[in-house]
């Protein structure tokens, strides 16, 4: 690895190189400091340690690491104070809290003041590295956009130039380099890519190759970008899960499986928990919806005024049952519990326009007008 290179070459290769100190560990237990240092250095992170808050802060200010691990309970300056002060002396540093089992609640508190995660003692090197890698990703997000932007788009390619094979290749290599600096192995990266590709292939087959695999991959990447933006907006908070799902649903009009897996990995929440929520609430669609949403209100007021008959008629015209989408992906028929415009009941809503008890021919006309 690059750490074995000579001093000269290290100096010549600039920002892509991991900095001398990536992580500072602050803990009054020497065994913890030493254990962390060994695990982190084995994974390629430059690591420094300090036995208390005061010395630790000095190190952070001096070395400007990317991540700092702080023990919650230390004599003298406690973890909460350290985290608060770290944000003053080194704003771009992402703090992680180390805590004993009994004080998880206070650790959660520290997340409110800026810690990105907490790990409970005793922890395995895997747990430690997982948390540090995630924090490293956050440092990317924390870095100023004007610094991040040129890195994402190599300066050699002017902004307006169309992407060429070589410029994209450069971007890919750039990404690979940065991934390895985060301790992410190439094989894992390729596995992710393969999984994405094979899902795209399956979907292309299911759609009878109406779109080719490459087009679908692009769509999926777009969707993942959207999901990631939403997660970032909510500050990677687990308690914002439902809000994140709602926002992704609003943006994409449904919740694709690959986005749910992405959210699961990003928030470190099990997929089952995410599916538990996504399948529990009415608002979430786990199947892709048609271009036009046709809703028939089945609230009580509409029901007594003949909603079941309106639903039959609508279903007859569209040729789909409630909850289904037609094969051309044009219409999705949905029932809703009360739209709160009971005076119009029974009511049908198509793309936000309300229709009071339309006849079969009116329904057909409304659907024809949808294009």
């Amino acid at each position: 690895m690059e750490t074995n290179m000579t001093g000269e070459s290290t100096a010549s290769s600039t920002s892509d190189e991991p900095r001398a100190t990536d992580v500072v560990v602050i803990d009054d237990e020497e065994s913890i400091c030493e254990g962390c240092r060994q695990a982190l250095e084995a994974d390629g992170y430059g690591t420094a340690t300090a036995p208390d808050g005061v010395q630790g802060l000095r190190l952070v200010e001096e070395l400007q690491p990317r991540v700092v691990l702080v023990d919650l309970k230390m004599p003298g300056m406690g973890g909460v104070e350290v985290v608060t002060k770290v944000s003053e002396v080194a704003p771009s540093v992402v703090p992680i809290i180390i805590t004993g089992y009994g004080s998880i609640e206070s650790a959660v508190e520290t997340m409110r003041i800026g810690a990105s995660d907490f790990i409970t003692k005793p922890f395995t090197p895997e747990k430690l590295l997982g948390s540090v890698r995630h924090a490293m990703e956050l440092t990317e997000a924390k870095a100023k956009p004007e610094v991040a932007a040129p890195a994402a788009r190599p300066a050699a390619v002017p902004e307006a130039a169309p992407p060429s094979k070589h410029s994209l290749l450069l971007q890919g290599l750039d990404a690979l380099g940065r991934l390895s600096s985060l301790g992410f192995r190439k094989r894992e990266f390729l596995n992710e890519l393969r999984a994405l590709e094979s899902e795209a292939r399956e979907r292309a087959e299911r759609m009878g190759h109406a779109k080719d695999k490459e087009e679908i991959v692009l769509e999926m990447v777009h969707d993942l970008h959207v999901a990631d933006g939403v997660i970032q907006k909510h500050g990677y908070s687990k308690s914002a899960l439902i809000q994140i799902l709602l926002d992704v649903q609003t943006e994409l009009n449904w919740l694709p499986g690959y986005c749910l897996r992405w959210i699961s990995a990003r928030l470190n929440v099990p997929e089952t928990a995410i599916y538990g929520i996504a399948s529990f609430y009415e608002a979430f669609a786990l199947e892709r919806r048609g271009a036009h949403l046709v809703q028939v209100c089945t609230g009580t007021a509409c029901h007594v005024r003949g909603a079941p008959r309106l639903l039959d008629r609508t279903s007859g015209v569209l040729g789909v049952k409630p909850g289904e989408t037609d094969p051309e992906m044009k219409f999705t028929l949905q029932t809703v519990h009360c739209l709160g415009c009971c005076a119009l009941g029974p009511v049908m809503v198509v793309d936000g326009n309300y229709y009071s008890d339309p006849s079969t021919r009116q329904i057909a006309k409304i659907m024809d007008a949808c294009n």
Partner: protein
Amino acid sequence: MPKLKSDTDLEGLRQRILAERDPNASCVTVCSGTGCHAYGCEGVADAFVSEIQRVGLDGQVRVRRTGCHGFCERGTVVVILPEEICYLHVKPEDVPEIVSSTLMDKNVVERLAYSDANGQKIVRHGEIPFYKHQRQIVFGDNRFIDPKSIEDYLARGGYAALSKALLQMTPEQVLAAVKEANLRGRGGGGFPAGRKWETTRNAPGDPKYVIVNADEGDPGAYMDRSLLEGNPHRVIEGLIIGAYAIDSHEGYIYVRQEYPLALENSIQALETAREYGLLGENILGSGFNFDVSIHRGAGAFVSGESSALMNAIEGRVGKPRSKYVHTSEKGLWEKPTCLNNVETWANVPFIINQGADWFRGIGTENSKGTKIFSLVGKIRNTGLVEVPMGSTLREIVYDIGGGIPDGKQIKAVQTGGPSGGVLPESMLDVPVDFDELWEAGSMMGSGGMIVMDEGTCMVDTARYYIDFLAHESCGKCVPCREGLRQMLRILTDITLGKGKDGDIELLEELSAFIEDSALCALGKTAPNPVLSTISRFRDEYEAHIKDKRCPAGVCKALISYYINPDDCIACALCARDCPTDAIEKTDTAYAINQEKCTKCGACAAVCPDKAKAVVVRDAVRAEYQVVA
């Protein structure tokens, strides 16, 4: 806007706003609630703005897009102030006439005014029977306020109660006032709000939370939405006062995602309140700190249950937990949490402003104040109505609601939503009162009131509610999940004509079991629609089971559509509207091919009134019955 730092600042601002407003200047208020949006109120308001500009009245006449006026049946509702001229069913094309006749020449456009049963025109808002028989207190300011304008709210006396509570009263005095007023929770249970506040206040644990429950899940009820979207500051003011009394510094508003306008308006109201220093640190210089965040619900009926709602805010599935310890002691993140419904919080500023005695002067012995109902179903005037507790259902249905349309007979009134029960015509003199409604076999609920006429099948209604509840059951406890599924199966069989002797008893037995053993209020009250329809309309169940007929002509398996050849005028409307081409031409008329017919009722809906040839008859016997 500099932050308001004292009551003097607040009053100063209010005086400045009032000084800028001439009470005699014309103002066109256009109802912009969700109901009127469905009618296209945006277009009406836009038309007013451009027409007023065109005739050069801008600067003299204001156009205000207000919250819901309540008279949803006649949307878009427009009221011209200060004369209080009320126009109904206004369309954008009516606007030029209103501007030239009413705003310029001070004449009334008669065709747009309310006309009573005798054709008599009623022009003034307050004289229209729908409004005249109400007592709008909580809902009253809706029609004067643009929900996006805090100035409008301040001009109506807004945040005066907050300033009084924070600067002139101790938290204990605020709590005592709410207890003394005997404000009971408007969300359904009717639990005294003051006692709930006190429990949270005294419970050990810090921080404490306060929550506005705007997860209105009752299908057919939309009072809370209209309050929150029409007058969000009222709810926020109530919440801050409550937080002060409870000693909470963090609040949540839990709104359904399906209520986009309520969401938008409450988010905006919170931002403005913060900007004015009515939320945040040291509110009005009192030293009290408080802020509120919004949490969007993703639409599940059970998530309106307090413990389920708190689970959802914590980011978990919105399922209830058993409440050995009340949420008021251990709620959100295991901390003491006080959750009240939108309407409950909205009542608080009135109690502080006008005193507990004033509040207690309205209503009955044990139910004080007013209640807002969403009066819907087979009723002439669909809308939101606010009445003092103690008003009878008959007054609501006939005096305010205008009775049943199309000359039909009323059969029942359903209150309490899916947890409530039906009250037959003979019980319409029951007063609106938490305890009286409970004794009559229904409940107050959150305020859904569905009127049913002779064309409503009570078995179908019970099946509808159980279908809804079985679908909405979170599945956590067996009695609710499996019990409701079995009840749904039995009820579906009955509506399909496959009912058996003993089904009614089996339903009763299952109901008793679910009531006893379900985990949360959804399950415990789920059998109510079945039990109350059985007890009041057993004959309808028996007709379905024994005679295989649906007296109301609703249950599809038990009816068939039939075109009476003597009445058919061969207009072919039904044949053209039939989605399955089941209607064929005979020599002089049309006839339905029963094999193809899906009984969607499209033919009956389009058959012209002068013919009324499409009738519903029993599938088993050949007794005719005109379609409801």
